[in-house]
């Protein structure tokens, strides 16, 4: 299984880099690469979905709250056969629906439009509450950023989800330690994301977001939570996989030029 994860995550990273280069535009590479290993395990092992029947009623829901890392999301959806290469190739082409943030498209497995940070947990918790009210078993997964946790609306949603005991809601915080302008405040003071989510009554799990064993355990733990919603605080490396992009915030949003791409090819060869 670990070999499969390794293979899938390498494939996702190659898809991201190649597509970022091919589109010729700046893309949010750092955050797309940091979440890859979690996306790989989630889509390989936990999320219930059927690309050939994308709207099937018992599917689980995935919401990319940190919408700007859409390239990591589209690479995942493409890898798991939600759409053809021709469709994937429209990424950041003028007039395309595949832009720098997700646009809701249930046929392609995109459950919500995002781009304005801090709104994904509210929407997801509404769906999680709806599933409970309808007495359905579906689960709702949200991928968000640590920088995104700055948004106050996140904590409005965190409070209510806890109060409503939405144990079918699992939030993954891709804690890559950076936001647009530099490092996030968390860990630099007594402000710890783990403490914050725990204080809001969430089942909180801290993991290395690049360790497949830990990711597996975290999801298993989350799905066994009896009453609490779960927050998985996944420590990751922004730009993971390409040495010169790792923890280098110049790659938060940037363009891969031809010479940079040649370096990427060397690194991807070694992955």
């Amino acid at each position, binding site marked *: 299984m670990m070999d499969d994860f390794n293979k899938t995550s390498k494939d996702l990273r190659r898809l991201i880099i190649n597509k970022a280069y091919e589109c010729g535009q700046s893309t949010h590479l750092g955050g797309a690469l940091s979440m890859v290993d979690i996306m790989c395990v989630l889509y390989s092992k936990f999320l219930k979905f059927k690309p050939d029947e994308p709207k099937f009623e018992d599917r689980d829901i995935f919401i990319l709250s940190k919408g700007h890392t859409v390239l990591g999301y589209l690479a995942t959806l493409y890898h798991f056969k939600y759409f053809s290469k021709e469709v994937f190739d429209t990424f950041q082409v003028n007039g395309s629906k595949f832009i720098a943030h997700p646009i809701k498209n249930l046929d392609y497995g995109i459950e919500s439009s995002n*781009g304005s940070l801090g*709104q994904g947990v*509210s929407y997801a*918790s509404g*769906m999680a*509450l*709806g599933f409970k*009210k309808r007495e359905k078993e579906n689960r709702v997964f949200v991928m968000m950023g640590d920088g995104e946790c700055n948004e106050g609306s996140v904590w409005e949603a965190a*409070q*209510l989800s806890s109060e409503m005991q939405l144990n079918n809601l699992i939030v993954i915080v891709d804690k890559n330690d950076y936001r647009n302008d530099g490092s996030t405040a968390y860990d630099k003071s007594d402000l710890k994301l783990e403490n914050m989510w725990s204080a809001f009554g969430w089942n909180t799990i801290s993991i290395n977001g690049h360790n497949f064993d830990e990711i597996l355990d975290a999801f298993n733990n989350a799905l066994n939570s009896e009453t609490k919603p779960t927050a998985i605080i996944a420590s990751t490396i922004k730009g993971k996989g390409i040495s010169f992009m790792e923890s280098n915030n110049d790659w938060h949003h940037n363009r891969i030029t031809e010479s940079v791409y040649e370096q990427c090819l060397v690194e991807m060869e070694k992955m």
Partner: protein
Amino acid sequence: MQINKKIAKMWSRMGPRAVYGKIMSDIAHKNEDILLMSADLGRSSGLASFYQTYPDRFVNTGIAEQNMIGVAAGLTRLNYNVFASTFAPFASMRAAEQVRMNMGYMEEPIKLIALGSGLSMGFLGNSHFGLEDVAVMKTIHNLTIISPADCIELYKTLDALVNYNSPVYVRLTGAVNCPVVYEDDYSFEIGQPIWIIPQSDINVISTGTTVGHAKKAVEKLNEEGYSIGLLNIHTIKPIAEEFVKDVLSTSKKIFIFEEHTRVGGLRSSIYDIIVDNAIQGLDVVSHTLPDSYLETGEYDYLINLYGLDALGIEKVIRESINEK
């Protein structure tokens, strides 16, 4: 529901906010897919007994309007028919971007009920007034905006919204002892303006509970021998452009009254139609709230102060007509 004079009178005494709670509870009682939401203002909007009877069908998000819109959007995905209410400035401005993303961009068909808009929050003051909400909400594409003229029209609006699968912002103005516009049942269609007093050369255009005050003013003037029509534009967006264009083109003089600042409300929509269609030779007088923070006091005091009660409206019309 049997609409008659007695009900109109009773609801008028209660005022739109309490009547919203009453009507909505009755409608939701009959329809299991309706969920009511509030950001900790259920009790202030007449929903307390519904909440006690159906705790599973009422979601109080706490004092968190942004989250209320997001959660409401998620619930619509499970085919719940969600009516979410809070005071107008919090619905339209505190949560404006959530309204834009969820109701505008994603078109999740939430019914957002803005309670206590205009000046109706009285002594609670400008933090609670809905002075600019129409202007803000009008900028959000895909949103329908409805402002009922009285409590009967509020009932007709909510009844129509049960089967309306698009996002809506409902603006409630007025307080207790709200003027009665309708005493019998009538045909209400979202988007379709209604002549309360038949069209004439001189016509008054209004929306929300200002229509009721304008009705009293126009009736008085017409008794004196004037001939003035009164049009209720309950649906501010999308405005019935062809209908209004026709009214503007066939009128000599138009008065616009609304309980909203002069920026971006019904007045602006009417002016847009005049400009876009190059309507010439029409005399237009508009009277709105000033673009400013306003005095505070009892509702009746405030609408009198700002000339939006029957006396103020009558004065504006009379002085303007007699100018020439």
